[in-house]
């Protein structure tokens, strides 16, 4: 198992290197000259050339990439062109709402979707199965920001139960914090839950057709015991895999959801950076979110060794 973990960790390095190369290329090929922007409107050609030299913008691609990677490894994601602040600091200021929203969505979606998928597989072909699958198809078809507006219209504008927009830190108390996350989490989580429910059902159907499940029933175990103890345990690997892969949907969705609900998180930072063409910030956010995605999937891969003792590779 140890060698598998080491090999899996080593395999992450080239993947992250390619992610870094792609992200660096984004800034390298970005239109406009950052030196000219930093120098301001009154700058002379000499001023711009000096800043070019200071920032190393006159160096060849590989050298610049090397310097940039070195900086990234030391926690330096560059300076935001618009605010003049380090990108890492900007991200640090915005990380709490995004982590809160993503984690809440993740926990709620997983805890709802897995029982739904199990139930649909257990009662395959019945109205329960059809309802769950119907919700799943809808989940794939209604974009998160569309659902967000429908939820706002019903629960905030018409019923006045929940706030329309904004975010309150958990330091201000649990209810104000939770109140602001209910609608964004529901909007963001539907597609993710749909994906998990669908794969849970598929994986459970596969397992439920196995001989040992029939044996478990034959020896008189309760349905609950068979479903949870035997079937779900063996169906776990594809489910955990999709929970990891589906994080990409959450990351994409969080950008839009934060915009709709005016949540001051990393998604909002990204949208602001795009409108201001703040390339270092766009680059930093893309790199960090991609790294988070890679790490989550690495953890998922490592969890296989616990979930399925046959996985030793």
């Amino acid at each position, binding site marked *: 198992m140890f060698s598998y973990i080491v090999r899996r960790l080593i395999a992450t390095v080239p993947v992250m290197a390619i992610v870094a190369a792609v992200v660096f290329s984004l800034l390298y090929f970005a239109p406009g000259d950052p030196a000219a922007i930093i120098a301001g409107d009154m700058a002379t050609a000499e001023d711009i050339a000096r800043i070019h030299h200071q920032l190393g913008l006159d160096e060849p691609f590989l050298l610049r990439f090397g310097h940039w990677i070195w900086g990234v490894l030391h926690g330096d994601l560059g300076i935001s062109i618009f605010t003049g602040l380090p990108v890492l600091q900007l991200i640090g200021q915005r990380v709490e709402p995004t982590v809160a929203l993503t984690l809440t969505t993740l926990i709620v979606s997983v805890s709802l979707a897995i029982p739904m998928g199990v139930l649909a597989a257990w009662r395959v072909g019945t109205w329960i199965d059809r309802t769950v699958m119907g919700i799943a198809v809808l989940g794939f*078809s209604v*974009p998160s920001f569309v659902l967000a507006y429908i939820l706002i219209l019903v629960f905030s504008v018409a019923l006045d139960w929940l706030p329309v927009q904004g975010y309150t830190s958990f330091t201000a108390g649990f209810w104000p914090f939770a109140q602001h996350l209910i609608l964004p989490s529901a909007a963001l989580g539907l597609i993710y839950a749909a994906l998990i429910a669908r794969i849970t059902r598929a994986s459970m159907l596969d397992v439920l057709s196995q001989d040992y499940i029939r044996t478990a029933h034959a020896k008189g175990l309760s349905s609950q015991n068979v479903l949870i103890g035997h079937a779900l345990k063996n169906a776990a690997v594809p489910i955990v895999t999709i929970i990891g892969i589906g994080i990409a949907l959450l990351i994409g969705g969080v950008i839009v959801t934060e915009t709709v609900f005016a949540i001051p998180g990393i998604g909002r930072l990204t949208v602001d950076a795009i409108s201001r063409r703040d390339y270092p910030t766009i680059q930093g956010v893309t790199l960090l979110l991609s790294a988070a995605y890679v790490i989550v999937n690495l953890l998922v891969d490592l969890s296989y060794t616990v979930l399925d003792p046959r996985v030793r590779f």
Partner: protein
Amino acid sequence: MTAAPIGFEAERAAPRERGAVRDLLRRHPTVAIGIAILALMLLMAVFAPYLGTVDPQALSPVRRLRFPSWVYWFGTDSLGRDVYSRVVYGARISLWVGFCVALFSTSIGLVIGLVAGFSRPVDAIVMRIMDGLMSIPPVLLAIALMALTRASTTNVIISITVPQIPQVTRLVRGVVLTLREQPFVEAAVAVGTGFFKTLRRHILPNTVAPLLVQGTYICASAMITEAILSFIGAGTPPNVPSWGNIMAEGRSLFQVAYYIVLFPAVFLSVTVLAVNLVGDGLRDALDPRLARRM
């Protein structure tokens, strides 16, 4: 095989295929519903100027923010533009982007996947690059690519296509690697069938079904991504009405004029639902093994 039997096969294939399509629609009525909705949306996009619309860009400050009525079916926006006309014209962008992204990503992914599947040295390099690209969440990569370029429909199509290529490549490569080991391919190679003929006769036909299913899902996902990009201001230019940017314009006025967001949202969701219904039906029909599981 000589040319005559091939011609004979082709003659017989037409009615058989028609029968297969009829069978598919009978067994999966949701596919028929999906196709019908898509056909309606397509007709709406093509005949937009003849469907009681006005110029979707025509400004009229005196008729700002009118609620939906018999005169303004979907109301008017903050600049007095007719939301119905904008939504009808907006169908053109969504359908065009969905179709182009599905076509380009499957075509490019097919070529790269075929090369990777047949050449070990290329495979080693290409698949590492694809792994790297797949590690960047697709919407994020599309946003980052759009940030580099100016807003245009072509750039939106390119930005959404690039993140989709790796998964098609992986799919095609997987099919090729499996087929290469199959006895019928080994037999074709053993009797001296040329490389391109083996590719055309034995490999390519087997990639059609999975690519068709994958292409449909890519189309649905591309429509949503286009709307996301336009919604956050990184998509189609503001002078081109798309469902995403109509919603973006209605965003700040949502509490007083929710209909500006609601109508394009409904059209987008229904269209994506239709594409997904067709995709699910095709998957059920073309891949019964997967269909049983899903």
